[in-house]
């Protein structure tokens, strides 16, 4: 599969892969190879995450996908983002996902039932394909030509002629180091969004705690002044309150 993908990539890029040129050319070629090895791996992990029946297997496939995406960030000159992706996503968030899966005991296969919407999966497949067509035309379409030969080998940039955008400022932007550059921009121009994001994280943590608290009176959580109202559903805390019970109560 990898060999096929690299062959297709060589055809698409129209660049000789075995390029015996200097260091600048080999950098572009290395990124090219890393991309065409990692992209099928990442897509295969994503598709198997969506398709696999066992949720724990799906979560592990998502870990593989996050690792490949972190390597993409490294290829795209975002080294700090690559480290953050591995630490936050592949580490913390995936542990959280697996923790919830095992806590709920839903790590086994869910009983297969008839879907409530008929033909849900074919419709989802069709909508996904349509969305991909729209995205490929709308987002990636303007950059399909050789005029966006960013990080390409120099001969590809030269072939593009006057339309080439050879990423001349990339070395200058990263010359002080990626982490230092990101930090300089984050704490000068973007310090206000940064602070707002920290407030958002605090709110999310408080919200998760409030939602996770076990109480029979949800009003207690939002009204702390001793106002006692009748709970809407006294049996909200019953552990086995299923939909069948709800339907019985409705009748």
């Amino acid at each position: 599969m990898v060999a096929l993908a690299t062959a297709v990539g060589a055809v698409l890029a129209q660049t000789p892969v075995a390029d015996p040129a200097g260091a600048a050319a080999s950098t572009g070629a290395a990124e090219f190879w890393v991309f065409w090895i990692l992209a099928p791996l990442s897509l295969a992990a994503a598709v198997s995450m969506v398709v696999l029946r066992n949720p724990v297997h799906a979560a592990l496939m998502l870990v593989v996908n996050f690792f490949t995406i972190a390597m993409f960030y490294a290829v795209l000159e975002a080294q700090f983002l690559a480290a953050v992706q591995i630490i936050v996503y592949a580490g913390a968030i995936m542990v959280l996902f697996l923790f919830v899966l095992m806590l709920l005991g839903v790590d086994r296969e869910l009983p297969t039932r008839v879907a409530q919407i008929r033909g849900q999966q074919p419709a989802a497949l069709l909508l996904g394909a349509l969305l991909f067509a729209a995205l490929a035309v709308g987002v990636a379409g303007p950059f399909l030509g050789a005029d966006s030969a960013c990080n390409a080998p120099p001969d590809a940039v030269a072939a593009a002629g006057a339309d080439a955008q050879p990423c001349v400022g990339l070395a200058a932007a990263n010359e002080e180091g990626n982490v230092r550059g990101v930090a300089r921009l984050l704490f000068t121009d973007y310090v206000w969004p940064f602070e707002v994001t920290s407030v958002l994280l605090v709110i999310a943590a408080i919200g998760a705690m409030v939602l996770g608290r076990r109480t029979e009176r949800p009003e207690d959580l939002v009204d702390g002044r001793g106002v006692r109202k009748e709970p809407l559903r006294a049996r909200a805390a019953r552990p086995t309150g299923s939909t069948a019970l709800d339907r019985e109560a409705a009748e």
Partner: protein
Amino acid sequence: MQAAFPLVFAALLFCVGVFGVLSRRNAVLVLMSVELMLAAVTINLVTFGLLAADRGDVVLTGQIFALFVLAIGAAEVGVGLAIILLLYRNRATVNIDDADLMKY
């Protein structure tokens, strides 16, 4: 590497995430598919920053926006998993077909 390759790859990844959101019925897996879509958007942001590398700090601006997307994704996972825990506590299932209390 031409910028179209990461962009098409991100579009594919996003559509796989959309398919997961639309077709899976386990709420935890729906949340994971949303994470996949967020990752695709982040790749797009970094790639567009790289495209504008000759305009000073724009290359790092894309990465900073990607960082914000990562932080918001972390917050979303925290609240979303708490909601799923609450759903399981009240309904004893995480099947989103059974969470139909607000259905018309």
